[in-house]
């Protein structure tokens, strides 16, 4: 077990180090998030709608699209010089590889999701107040579900000719629960409702995230094994 955790930590650390050196994904996602928030800001008629009514949906859709940009590149650096084959040929269980890759994606996407919230608070003048802690929890659960599905399906689509096109087609239908419960809980917080009213959505989101994570770590071997 100790070795298993060490192997996860090693792959996770490598992914973080490579990303912080190349900044490929963080820059692409960060620029996307800021630009989308600016465009939404200008595209919305504030005389007809109030920010609280639409912000939660826009926040989650921005997280989804930005996440797709980042998660879609999970195995691109690995493909360079066949490095992923090197990991597969080392004595690391496939589920450990999945967990490490998903956790690395979680770190990138969670940073990005918090940036999304910050940018929307800035441009839409939202007030989160005392629910900010719970909002970050809801976002963490949604991001966990997203990266679990994203990492698995990126592994599926990377080896195909239409990989980049295929990924959203595969993943978006499965992300419906994340959008439904994530948006539900977020809109409650933005409307200043008590946390108890969002409990149901948070529980469903947590259950979905954990199920997606465990299923992903189990199914990953069937995707990467020849």
């Amino acid at each position: 077990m100790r070795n298993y955790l060490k192997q996860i930590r090693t792959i996770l650390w490598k992914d973080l180090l490579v990303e912080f050196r190349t900044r490929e994904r963080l820059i692409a996602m960060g620029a996307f998030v800021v630009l989308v928030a600016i465009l939404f800001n200008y595209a919305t008629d504030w005389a007809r709608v109030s920010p609280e009514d639409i912000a939660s949906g826009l926040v989650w859709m921005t997280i989804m699209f930005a996440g797709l940009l980042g998660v879609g590149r999970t195995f691109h650096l690995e493909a360079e010089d066949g490095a992923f084959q090197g990991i597969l040929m080392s004595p690391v269980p496939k589920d450990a590889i999945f967990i490490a890759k998903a956790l690395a994606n979680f770190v990138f996407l969670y940073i990005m999701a918090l940036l999304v919230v910050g940018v929307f608070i800035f441009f839409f003048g939202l007030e989160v107040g005392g629910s900010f802690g719970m909002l970050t929890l809801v976002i963490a659960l949604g991001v966990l579900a997203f990266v679990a599905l994203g990492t698995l399906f990126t592994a599926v689509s990377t080896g195909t000719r239409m990989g980049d096109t295929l990924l959203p087609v595969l993943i978006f239908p499965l992300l419906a629960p994340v959008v439904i419960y994530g948006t539900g809980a977020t809109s409650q917080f933005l409307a200043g409702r008590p946390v108890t009213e969002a409990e149901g959505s948070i529980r469903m989101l947590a259950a979905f995230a954990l199920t997606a994570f465990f299923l992903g770590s189990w199914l990953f071997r069937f995707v990467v094994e020849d």
Partner: protein
Amino acid sequence: MREYGTVTAVDGIDLSLARGEFLTIFGPNGAGKTSLLALLAGALRPNRGQVWLRGETLDFGEVEWRHRIGVLSHQGFLYGHLSAEENLRFYGQLFGLSDLDYVVNHKLQHLGLQDRAGSLVRDLSHGMKQRLALARALLHDPDIVLLDEPYTGLDPSAAIVLQGVLSDLKDGQRTIVMVTHNLTEGLALATTAAIMNRGRFVWQGKRAEIEGDFGQFYHGVIEGEE
């Protein structure tokens, strides 16, 4: 046997290798050499047949046997944005090596890369990358070494370094299988040789059995098959 759709890459090869043996497999492009090596490495599942390792069937679900196999492919399995030392440390940690500092430094020194330990792999020459890839393949001191076209793209001095390392490896304790187009370098260290074409061994024999011009013999065998 291994098939890709309607193409049979490896067809009915019955191969038994003893400890200390150095088998060199020659053959034209598309003969199935790399697929055979991937089968031996456990990177590919055979459609039919089995790979045995010290009396036990190679089990794809288990990872422990990977400690005993080192693979040098024509891809280096290296990360361009990590330094030479970081790459070796990464793989060393995945293999759970103890005394990693000593092992990494020793390998870098042995392959003449100690001066470039801190250089990013993307800044190394092809010959240096190839040497580093060999250091990676041998890091965990495997007793079965699989080499796929190790001389490709090397300048004469790098080829001499590689020849020296391979010569050191031939210590009677390891089983080595090398795939190559290069008849001279391929035969230099071999104890056994085989010629592969269209997925099958069309000739196999001891190095000592090879008399006269092997190049002529090789071309004769291939042309006779085609």
